[in-house]
């Protein structure tokens, strides 16, 4: 039946609601496009043969057939667009949550065009953010919550290695170590799940 492969793509999105980004279904997308091409060609053929048939009755039926195929075509198109659009929206969110560099497991799930889109989105965002604050730039992904104090106690959840602070000193972030750091400089690491804030 037409349109069934297309809806599978959408269902894949629903199934993976809790994942950051599922792998791109390249072969399925290809199949849907093939189906659309086939539909288009059949319609094309029927339209050309239409001039030969004279009966009004059969012409009516032919229109119906063509229209059914066409609506299948539009349906497939809608599913494809929705599939790609939703993926882009998730990708956009990933930029805000993970930052400009995606973890490799996620990066492997992108297709080439998505990589290009992601990179240009990153650079657009970076340009925009650097223009803010009278040209001095501001990182919009930070400071989502109002800070209570300048420094926070954080706990390191994994071995991260040396982390250079703005004052030139380094903090060694090894697993299960606790640190007291300026919020501004470690907020990103908290967002990325490397550090955990501890409220005492």
């Amino acid at each position: 039946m037409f349109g069934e492969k297309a809806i599978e793509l959408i269902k894949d999105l629903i199934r993976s609601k809790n994942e950051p980004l599922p792998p791109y279904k390249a072969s399925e997308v290809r199949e849907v496009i093939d189906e659309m091409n086939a539909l288009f060609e059949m319609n094309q053929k029927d339209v050309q043969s239409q001039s030969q048939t004279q009966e009004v009755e059969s012409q009516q039926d032919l229109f119906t057939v063509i229209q059914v195929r066409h609506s299948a075509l539009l349906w497939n198109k809608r599913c494809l667009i929705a599939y790609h659009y939703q993926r882009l929206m998730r990708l956009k969110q990933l930029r805000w949550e993970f930052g400009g560099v995606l973890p490799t497991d996620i990066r492997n799930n992108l297709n080439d065009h998505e990589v290009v889109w992601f990179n240009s989105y990153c650079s657009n965002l970076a340009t925009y953010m650097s223009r803010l604050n009278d040209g001095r730039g501001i990182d919009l992904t930070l400071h989502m919550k109002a800070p209570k104090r300048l420094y926070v106690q954080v706990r390191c959840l994994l071995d991260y290695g040396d982390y250079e602070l703005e004052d030139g000193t380094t903090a060694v972030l090894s697993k299960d170590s606790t640190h007291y750091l300026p919020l501004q400089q470690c907020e990103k690491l908290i967002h990325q799940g490397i550090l955990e804030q501890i409220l005492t």
Partner: protein
Amino acid sequence: MAASGANGGRVPSDFAAIDDIVALSKKVSCRFVKSVARLGFIDQSADCEHVAEGTQLELPLWMAKTLAARGLITVDPPKGYNQIYREILDADASVVDLHKLGPHFYAFGGHLVAMNAPEGEEIAKSLVHTFHQRLHKIMDFSLNASEDTPFELHAFKNNLDSCELELFEEGSNCLKDVKKWEHRTLDQICANDMVVSLKKRKRAMMACSERMATDS
């Protein structure tokens, strides 16, 4: 083109909305009132070239819409929208499991009404009435249910249609925010949701592979 012409050529706002697409892909049973030549391909189970008058078919809603627009089929209101169910919903909508009927009960019903199905007007009325009856309970649950009764809460949430669920979540998030504001809890800066879910998946996968390694 009739299909896009109905929207006046512009893209509707829910064009890329997943819920709407899924609702449209649900099947309804249709009966052909006219025979149509060479349309046999839509009925894959029967191997004939034409569709005869009176043929009964299960078609996805989007296709039924096209055919109904040309007056070729009549659509039987599916379970949940027919006379019997309308009466049930009328009696007490709050006990019906809309998730089982839906899960996009309202969206699907809306499309049914829009395609001028028979009983369309009754269906529309029933939808509004159902929502009206259920809304109060949703609000009540989302603003009062706490973590102390996870079982009831879970059972209730399982009964909801997708758009009701959205409403419910919205309400309970608001409640959380208000509570937080009342208690003046310190805002803890947390890892982003996606980061957390990625980590969980990784851990689950590692545990799984470990188990497989020990099994073999």
